[in-house]
């Protein structure tokens, strides 16, 4: 079932067109990642969905009806969560719960559950001012979940964390996604590949690609040849661009990836070239484009 639909959503800040009329929808129960480079408009989009930012034009439907105030149904973790540093972790959660219309008892009970879940039970009585970045992020996750939202929106939930912290938050998200629809933004492609069902790739205020992770990968996947040289072979690499079966050559130091239209013939001819010219290769590998390749392609286009 369709949980949320954005139609022709536009946001302008003065002369900047941050979001240029995007359309997408989110199915209930899915975990959707919003990908895009810095400045793509991810945060702006998420803020409009959460009701914190008025769209310049366009509309948002929630469960098939035009949305008025969605805040009751949405849990939001901002890119840079802030707290009252003089409160303890638990106090803040109870406060947030009561603001979301839980009564005091419910808020206390739910806070304890969530503190346990995000691993802050031992720190619950400490002042938030003394929390580490990772602890604040987990507390932010807990406050977003406090009122059992229908849709959890997370803006770059793992970007500021160290590898361990990232692992923890990703594992929590994997658990949460069993109960709640999640929309999260990230520029860490690996994370998107790991836990999302659907992806939206944004670039310069527009949605470039959207769909389920599987179908997008399927549709855009291309055979690719990866060659690693012992020394540079720029001349030869320049010359192969003229072959009709080569569609793209990307050189990164001694490594090169070549997108081929015809893998079967292409690899034979290229391998023969290498042997004929006596080029010093270290690796010759056939593989498929990854989400990262797709991302780079969209962003550079």
């Amino acid at each position, binding site marked *: 079932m369709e949980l949320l639909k954005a139609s022709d959503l536009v946001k302008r800040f003065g002369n900047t067109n941050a979001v240029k009329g995007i359309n997408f929808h989110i199915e209930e129960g899915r975990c959707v990642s919003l990908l895009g480079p810095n400045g793509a408009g991810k945060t702006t989009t998420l803020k409009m969905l959460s009701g*914190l930012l008025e769209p310049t034009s366009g509309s948002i439907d929630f469960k098939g009806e035009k949305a008025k105030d969605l805040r009751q149904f949405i849990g939001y973790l901002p890119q840079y*969560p802030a707290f009252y540093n003089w409160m303890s972790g638990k106090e803040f959660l109870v406060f*947030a719960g009561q603001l979301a219309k839980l009564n005091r008892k419910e808020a206390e009970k739910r806070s304890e559950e969530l503190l346990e879940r995000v691993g802050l039970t031992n720190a619950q009585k400490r002042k938030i001012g003394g929390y580490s970045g990772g602890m604040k992020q987990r507390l932010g996750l807990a406050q977003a979940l406090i009122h059992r939202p229908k849709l959890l929106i997370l803006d770059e939930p793992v970007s500021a964390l160290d590898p361990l912290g990232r692992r923890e938050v990703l594992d929590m998200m994997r658990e949460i996604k069993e109960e709640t629809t999640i929309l999260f933004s990230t520029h860490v492609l690996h994370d998107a590949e790991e836990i999302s069902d659907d992806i939206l790739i944004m670039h310069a205020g527009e949605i470039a690609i959207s769909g389920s992770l599987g179908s997008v990968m399927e549709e855009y996947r291309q055979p690719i040849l990866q060659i690693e040289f012992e020394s540079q072979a720029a001349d030869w690499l320049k010359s192969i661009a003229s072959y009709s079966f080569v569609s793209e050559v990307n050189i990164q130091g001694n490594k090169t990836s070549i997108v081929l239209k015809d893998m079967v013939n292409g690899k034979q001819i290229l391998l023969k070239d290498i042997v004929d010219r006596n080029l010093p290769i270290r690796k010759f590998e056939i593989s498929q484009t990854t989400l990262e390749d797709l991302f780079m392609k969209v962003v550079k286009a």
Partner: protein
Amino acid sequence: MIQWIVLYRKEMTEMARNYKILWIPIVFILLGVMQPVSSYYMPEILDNFGGLPEGTILDMPTPTGEEVLMQVISNYGMLGVLILVLSAMGVVSAERQSGVAGMVMIKPVPYSSYILSKWAGLLTITLISLFIGYVASWYYTSLLIETVAFERIFQSVVIYSIWLVFVVTLTLFFSTIMKGNGSVAFVTIFVVFAISTVTSILGKYMTWSPAKMTEHTGQVLLSGELDSSFLLAFITTIAIIIVVLISSIQIFKQKELLE
């Protein structure tokens, strides 16, 4: 409604944790008590430290109790206002700056509840400070100088509190529309003193001005009678407060709350 109470309780807890609930009333008590004490001891002080030639006969009339209290009100009008504005300047702007205002408004909280809870918190601290300070002043005045009728005290403090409520409402407004705490304080103080100055220069034409509350306070203290122009000033002041509050809420709605 429940959210309003939750937010108001948070305001009060915050003021308790950072001791504002303690030190602002203490400042008002000190300002209030210093006046009768210094009036009482003034002749002695001058005698001992004044460096007057031997044998000079001091002939300083001791001020009446009412005059002492008027001086207290005038101190509140300067230092009291300054302290209140400085302590309230970040009430919204600091929370916007840190981003925590966004964390609150991301929950289904009416924008009016947020602003009005702030306002109620400011009123609480302002009125508590003023009443306690003034009562302390009255006590020392009756102890050292003379007793002033409690009725006059009560009426004058109620009238004066309207002016202070006006001042903190303005502070809340500027704290909502501007981001830097310093500029909030500066602009508020500037506006408050501009209103006071213009009102005292063009008094005849500005009987409606909120700054007239100070004059009415003095009037009630000295004569026990309210001037007939009080009602006009009272109505415009309340009207301005309401308009300023509504504008604060509307402007707050338009502000971008998360970075």
